[in-house]
Every structure is written in C-alpha cells, then in structure tokens.
C-alpha cells in the first residue's frame, strides 16, 4: 500500500511541478493574502467597542477611614464595579500569584491589585496606589480596549475621590477660601496612583500574532480546495475508475490524495513564512517545529477530510472547487485567522467550537504566547482537532465509497 500511496503522491507532485497555473495560485494566493493582510489590516487594526472585561481583583487594603461615614473605600469601589456591565462579575482573589495564574491561562483579561492602606491614604490626603496587570499576548486588541476602559475608570475614580476630599476639607476652611482651595486641590490632585503592568515579556506586534492565523488559514484552504478538487478531478476524468479496477485499495487512493494535498499546502506554508520573515521581519517567534508541524499536518488533514466530503457531495470538479472556496471565504473571518474570536460578538459562541478555530488557537499558543511570557497548553485543543479530523474522515470515506460507485 505504501508504494501505491507514494506513486499517487509522486504523480501529483510531477503534475504540480509542470502546471504553471497551479503554481500561480499556490504562490500568488498566499503571497497576496499575507501582504494585503499584513500591510492593510496589520497597520490599521483599530480599537473595538468593549462589551465585557473579565477582571480579577486582589484587595490588600484592610485599612479604614478615620471618618466612620467613609468606611473602606476599596470595598465600596469593588461593589461599584460589580454593578457595572463592563466588569460584572468581578472575581476576587486573596493573593496576587493566584490571580496572575488565571491571567496567564486566559481566564482573566486583567488583574487589579489594590494596595495596602488604600483607604487610609485616600482619606488622609496621601496617594493611594493600585496596580493593573494585563497580558497583551493572548489577545492583543483586547489590551487596547482594557487599557482604555481602565483609564476611564481610574480618571472617574480620581475625580470622585478628589471631590470627596474637597468636600471634607471645606468643612475646615472659611467659606471665602473654599473656591481657591477647591481649585488648588483639583490642580494638585492625583489621589489614586495607577501602575499598569503588562505581563507579556515584550511589545506586541500584530504581524506576529497574525502569522499563525495565516498558516492555519492556508492549511484549511489548501486542505479544502486541493482535496476536494483533486478527488473530483480524478473522478471526472475517469482516473478513479482506472485506480478502482487496479489492485489499489480505496484507502491507498484516499491517503495518497490527502498526502498530495499536504505537499501542495506545505509549499504555501513556506511562502507565508518566507514573506513574513523577509518583508515583516517576523522571525523571533517560538517556531517549535516539533509542535507546529504536527498541528499544521493535523489541520491540513482535517480540512482535507472535509474536502473529501465536499468532493463526495459535488457533482463535478468546478462545484467542488466552488464549495471549497466559498467555505474558506466565510470561515477565514470567523476562525481567528485575522480577527480575534473574542471580537466576533454573536458569532463567538459558534466560532469557538469550530475545529479550525482550535487549530489557529493552538498554533498561536505555541508560536506567539511564549514570546510574550504566556503558556503553551494545547492538549484539549489538539484532542478536539484530532477527534473532528477522525469524524470528518469517517464520514468522508463513507461518502467517497458510495459516490464512487455512482460515478464509475
């Protein structure tokens, strides 16, 4: 069987080598895609409206105000946040490391640490401090949103506390001096000192975040298109008939065709990586070939298996290619290739369960997360991807057998 698989692969490789139009497509598509997305979206990608931020709070402030009516300001602040749609529900933690661990694994998007004596310092006209940790590696666009929201929140907090301080101070100064004091205090006010800490270890670059998504997209596109197209072509031109009457098993034909897709897609991978390295200077990623190559192979096989289903339900090669292209065009926007899944709004619940979203996420966790100090946990993603691949393969092989009978 191996020899027959190899013969099919070799035959397709030879045909690919000689077919100029295939090469134009194979190199042209990833080249244009990478350049357009890299230059256009990569540089223009802007902020998006925030719906909700998953925030964790570590409240180290145990101090109380000398004025009983003020109470503990930090607790009041947390209670206020819990009524805000942006933050609700606020997750509280007893220690920083516990909260930062959640941030690292993407369960939280920001961690706010309210430091000791926060209330006392505020009320006694000292500066009260807090630190906000964010991780720019897991979802870069969210960083901008989170920073913007937290900034708005702290400005509002500062304004409110300054006003309260002025109210308290005004009780001890004559009425004619209250305006001057108020102006002076507004001018000097910075009651809350906010430090924002990015837990990622280096500055984020969108093109670096983008590369795994483009590789994933190529795997999916190539898998769909080549697998669906080649199988439909073989069937339409009668080659499948010749293979079927020979002592070559159906499995050898299938595996051979799928590996041919893999060879074609591998060329596209090389083009994408080369363009990113040469044009966009994206080379300092965690390439980890021992992980990225198996993920890319699995993703391509997954898409090829779906391509098999497409070819089985298509009447001819042009219908198979059309269906494969249509699916890719739609999927590219919802599987986290260019746009983070968290930005998809109502589509997010669907997108996050697509196997190709898992593939992109796994690639990103391997290639991008570590360079920003993030984690590589891909077990569940790969399991899901592998399970869906087997499911697609089983359905595809079943339909392949049925439809082949119809076409011989």
């Amino acid at each position: 069987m191996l020899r027959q698989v190899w013969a099919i692969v070799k035959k397709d490789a030879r045909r690919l080598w000689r077919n100029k139009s295939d090469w134009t497509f194979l190199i042209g598509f990833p080249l244009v895609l990478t350049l357009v997305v890299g230059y256009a979206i990569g540089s223009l990608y802007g902020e998006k409206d925030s719906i909700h931020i998953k925030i964790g709070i570590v409240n180290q402030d145990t101090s109380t105000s000398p004025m009983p009516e003020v109470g503990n300001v930090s607790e009041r602040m947390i209670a206020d946040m819990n009524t805000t749609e942006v933050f609700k529900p606020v997750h509280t933690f007893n220690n920083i490391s516990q909260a930062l661990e959640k941030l690292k694994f993407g369960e939280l998007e920001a961690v706010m640490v309210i430091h000791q004596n926060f209330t006392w310092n505020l009320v006694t006209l000292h500066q009260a401090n807090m630190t906000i940790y964010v991780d720019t590696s897991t979802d870069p666009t969210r960083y901008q949103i989170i920073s913007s929201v937290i900034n708005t929140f702290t400005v509002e907090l500062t304004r409110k506390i300054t006003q309260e301080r002025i109210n308290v101070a005004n009780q001890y100064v004559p009425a004619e001096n209250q305006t001057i004091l108020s102006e002076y205090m507004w001018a000097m006010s910075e009651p809350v000192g906010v430090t924002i800490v990015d837990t990622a270890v280096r500055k984020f670059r969108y093109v670096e975040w983008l590369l795994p998504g483009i590789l994933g997209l190529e795997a999916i596109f190539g898998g769909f298109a080549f697998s669906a197209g080649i199988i439909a072509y073989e069937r339409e031109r009668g080659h499948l008939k010749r293979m079927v009457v020979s002592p070559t098993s159906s499995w050898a034909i299938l595996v051979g065709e799928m590996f041919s897709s893999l060879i074609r897609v591998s060329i596209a991978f090389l083009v994408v990586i080369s363009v990113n390295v040469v044009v966009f200077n994206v080379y300092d990623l965690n390439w980890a070939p021992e992980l990225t190559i198996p993920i890319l192979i699995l993703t391509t096989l997954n898409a090829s298996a779906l391509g098999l289903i497409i070819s089985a339900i298509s009447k001819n090669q042009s219908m198979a290619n059309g269906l494969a292209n249509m699916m890719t065009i739609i999927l590219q926007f919802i599987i986290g290739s260019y746009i983070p899944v968290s930005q998809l709004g109502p589509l997010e619940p669907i997108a996050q369960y697509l196997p190709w979203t898992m593939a992109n996420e796994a690639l990103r966790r391997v290639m991008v997360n570590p360079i920003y100090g993030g984690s590589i946990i891909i077990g569940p993603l790969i399991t899901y991807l592998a399970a869906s691949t087997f499911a697609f393969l089983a359905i595809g092989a079943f339909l392949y057998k049925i439809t082949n009978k119809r076409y011989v």
Partner: protein
Amino acid sequence: MIEGDVVLLEVQDVSFSFGDNKVVDQVSFSVKEGNCFGLLGPNGAGKTTLTKIIVGLLQPKEGHVTINGIDVHREAGKIKPMIGVCFQESIFYEDLTGKENLEFVASLYNIPRGKVAEAVSNSLNRVLLTEKDANKRVEHYSGGMKRRLAVAAALLNDPQLLILDEPTTGLDPQARRALWDAIEALKKEERSILLTTHYMEEADILSDRVAIIDKGKIVASDTPKALKDSLGESVIELTCSLTKSKFLENAKQALRGSVIVSLENGYRVLTREPDNLLPEIVALGTKHEIGLVSMKVSTPTLEDVFIKLTGKGLREG
C-alpha cells in the same frame, strides 16, 4: 466446449438495469484461454455496461461473472491483478509523459520497482510506440497514440485477460489499422482478449468468436465465419445520392422474403436470389428517384448478420 479448451471468462445470465431501464438482459457467454472474443453491437447496446460488470465496477442485479473460476464480485481482490482494462475514453494525465503515465499505472498494479522499466518498455513495444513517443507529454499525442497508450497501460501487468472496450472508436482509418496490427500481434501471443466494438470489420478481423448484442441481449454467438455462413444469402449494396422513406416502404413490400435496410448512403438488401431481384430494384429506384450511383452483389459481413437478426444497421443503434 471443445475438450481441452479452458474457459477463462464466464458470464452467466447477467442482467443489469439503470432504474427501470434494463440495459443488460440475461447475457451469457464465455471466453476461452488464448482466444479473442468480440462483443459486437451498436452504441447503447449495453457493451460498456457489460464491460464494467466484468471488471467489477458494477454489480449485476442477476447472474454472475467468473474469471478462472473466481467470482469477480465476491473476490475482487484476487481478480484485479489478473485483468488489464483499456477503457473507451482516454484516461491519462495529459501533463505527464506517456512513460510517466505508464509508470504510475505500473505502481497501481504493484509491479516490483526493479521491473517497472522493463514492463513499460515491453508494453510500449507491443503497441508500437517508440521511446521518443513515450517521452512526450500525452497532451501532444494524437488520438491513435492515446489509444495505443491505453492498450499499453492495460498490458503492463501482463494480464491473463485483456479487456478492450471500443479501442478504436473515434480513430481515423490509418490509426485504426495501426491499432489492429498491435492487437493482431497480441493475438499471436495467444493472449485472451475480450473486445467490444461497433465496427463489424474490427470484430470480423480480430475475433475468434463473436457475440452480437442488441438492446442488452445476445442475439447470436459463434465464429465470424459461421455467423456469416449461417445467412446463406447474398448482399446487394446500393449506393445512392438520396435515401427516401417511400422507396424503402415500397421495396420492403416488393422484395418479400428479403431484408432491406437503409444505411448512411444507400441501402443493403439480403437475399437468396440476387439475380432475380436486381432488375426490380433498379425499376423501383428509378421510380422513386433515389439517385442510384452503384450496385454491387457481395458476400455477407457481420453487419449483414446483425441486419438479418435485428432488422437494422449497426450504426442505427
């Protein structure tokens, strides 16, 4: 069966339908080892469907097919290495050379790596294709070269049974003759061949035995000579510039006891008494202004056998 002859292919009571349309109806025949068996019939007679059943691509609704005593549909794995199939259409990767296509087919048949070159070279020699031809891409081949390459591909695994499905369809007379020469050479090797064709001359020249098939049924089966002799009649061939249905109608009434059919450029009359009929035919032709160009009395061909059995010409379908 003659004692000592070994039956290689046995088709027994095979029927097949596409929906309600019965395209193969209770067909039975056998091919002996070393013989060339011709299946002659017009387009749509069921020849290709029958071929597909024999090679295992289609499952018959009734009956069964055995090769060397092995059931084709129950033990397909054992049968596949024993047969070589040349399909009606040209199934090649046009952007590969003839040789590369053959190497690919050789791999499908598990021919040992070290023997592929030899097998390819032998096959090419048998169909009279040169090394230079073999190194050209198939897209640059003529129709005749493609058909010969198709036969070469079917020969790669040195099959016990070679199945040629309409091998010369669409070829010009010269290319057809070249392919016949190649098939004749294979016959000299005493290779067992099943040949389907709608060219009576092809079946006549190449086949040891012929089965005539029409509308999915075998209507006669014997050696070409025996089939022709069985008519015991002569043939009057009329070539005319016009064919008229009224002439055919009147001729059928006037020439009772004979069979007359309309062909592409004239008529064909099967009769036991050609001398008596000739004046009558000329008179009728003149009356109906059919533009009689020539008349010829000849011995019957397989087409005449087909005409006698079905009342129509092979090309009428």
